[in-house]
Every structure is written in structure tokens, then in C-alpha cells.
């Protein structure tokens, strides 16, 4: 199995949500973060969103954008994954 879907209860959708995923067998951990962002109807050029993403901590890689239909006031969610360094066991 290469992918799983976890139904998460995000309490009010206003806050950052972080997930720590541990694989016991591989002794590895992945970190995910879900950032909510509110877009207004007149923000059609994406300038604020691009700026938000570009200035986001480089430790985190944007994985996926979840958003409603185009246009209008809406909340979107940005799913990030922490950039990992490979550490070989000695």
C-alpha cells in the first residue's frame, strides 16, 4: 500500500493542524501540516497566496492545495510535508 487516507476531525478549521506519522517497522517519521487560509473574492491574481507560500518556512514543502470552487470568498487548505534529511544508521 502506497497511500492512505485518514479522516481527520479538524475542530473548527481555523487552526494549523500538524500530523506526525510514525512507521514502526522502518523506524521513520513523517510530518505533515495543514494550514487554513482565507481568500477574498477580489484576490484573483493570486499575489497574496503566492507571497504566503514563497515566504513560508523552507523546512516545509507544499504538497497539495485543497480549495473550493473558483472565485468568491472561500477558505482553502495547504498541505505541507516537512523536508526530511536521510540519515543512515551507522
Amino acid at each position, binding site marked *: 500500500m502506497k497511500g492512505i487516507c485518514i479522516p481527520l476531525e479538524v475542530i473548527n478549521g481555523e487552526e494549523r493542524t500538524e500530523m506526525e506519522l510514525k512507521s514502526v517497522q522502518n523506524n521513520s*517519521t513523517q510530518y505533515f501540516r495543514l494550514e487554513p487560509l482565507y481568500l477574498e473574492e477580489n484576490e484573483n491574481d*493570486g499575489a497574496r497566496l503566492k507571497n504566503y507560500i514563497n515566504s513560508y518556512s523552507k523546512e516545509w514543502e507544499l504538497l497539495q492545495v485543497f*480549495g473550493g*470552487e*473558483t472565485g468568491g470568498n472561500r477558505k*482553502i487548505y495547504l498541505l505541507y510535508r516537512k523536508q*526530511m*534529511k*536521510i540519515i543512515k544508521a551507522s
Partner: protein
Amino acid sequence: MIRTEEITKTFINDEVETTALTRVNLAIDEGEFVAIMGPSGCGKTTLLNILGMLDRPTKGRYWFDGKDVTNMSEIQRTKYRRGKMGFVFQSYNLIEELTVYHNIELPLLYMGISAGERKRRITEMLDKIKLSHKRKSYSRQLSGGQQQRVAIARAVITNPRLILADEPTGNLDSVNGEEIMSLLTDLNNQGTTIVMVTHSPVHADKANRIIQLFDGYILTENIKKALKTVS
């Protein structure tokens, strides 16, 4: 191989104008594997259709192999993309009335390839996609994964330099999805350029570059893949 400059696409339905793409600038080199991601309705398929010359931009320009193909007529576009581009769709788009063998044969017939050469290529391809035993089957007799393998075989039988895949694993379970990704990765390793629309970050990770589209514009481009393992 591919270069777009300020591509915009608008659709007008019932006097309502909808912008599907806004000023998209994109360059894709030969041999790249590019994944396009983004929420539903963000313009992914519209962009793929324009890159595949199935549609034309409302504004902006598109160069393929250094040639400006923006304003080609439909007939010119059909001739131009033949043998250069292969298409893979989420819903396979196989012809139900034809067998596996004859579905794969179709693009070769359009290109006027001789009967002997067609047979040689199809036999080799069926072996490659491990469906030699299904050569006489019809698409309804195949699983989803098998149908998509046939669709990929049909797309690559003319040895195109570019494969455009629109959610090729969208209708498949994880095992069959992995098989399809493995086929696409093999093709890319052999030098075929691949542009793939996907909703799956796992499958996008197979690409060299991930483009995030949002509301019709390019939000980000990750050229370097993430390092994935930690201990």
C-alpha cells in the same frame, strides 16, 4: 520542447465568461517528467489540452519544438501532433467494438504503417504490458488496470516523444495505479517526456517537477523532489 508565453484561456457559456487559465508561462525540456496538481476546476485539464494541441489558448503563444503552433487550424494541429504526442485519459477511452490488438493498432493505421511492421510493434507492445494473452479480448472483458495498460500501449505505439496523461490512475486502485505509474516511469527513463495531471501527491512524487495550479495560474513549481526518508 514546450514553451508557453502568457497563455490565457476563457470559456463563454450563456454569456458568462469563465477564465480557466491566466497568463501561464511554462517551459518543459525533452525528457522531463512533469506532474500538474491542483484542486478541481483549477485549469489542469485545460492546460493539458492546450499542450496537447486539442484546444487553443484565447491569448498568449505556444511553441512546440521551437515552432509556434498557437494559431494552427484544427487540421494542421491534427497532422502536426500525429506521432509526436500520445494521450492517456482517466476513463481509458478505448473503442469498445475493437479488440485489444485493434485498439493498439489504430494510431499505426492513421500513420500508414505497413501491416508487417504493425504486427511486429503490437506483438512487442503486448508483451511489454503483459497482455499478450488478452490480444483478442474486448475492453469490457478487461479490468480497469488492464484497460489503462492498453490505453498507454495505444498512446506509445507510435513512439511519441511526449505523453500527456490526464489523471491516468484516477479510476484505479492503489495496486493498479502503481503498475501504471511504473509503466510511465519506465517510458520516461527511456527518454519520453511525460506531462501528467494527478490528484495524488504519491504519484506526483514520481515526477521530476511538480507544478501546482490554482485558479488558473501557476502557484508553485517544485523542481527538486523532496527527500523522503528519515530515521
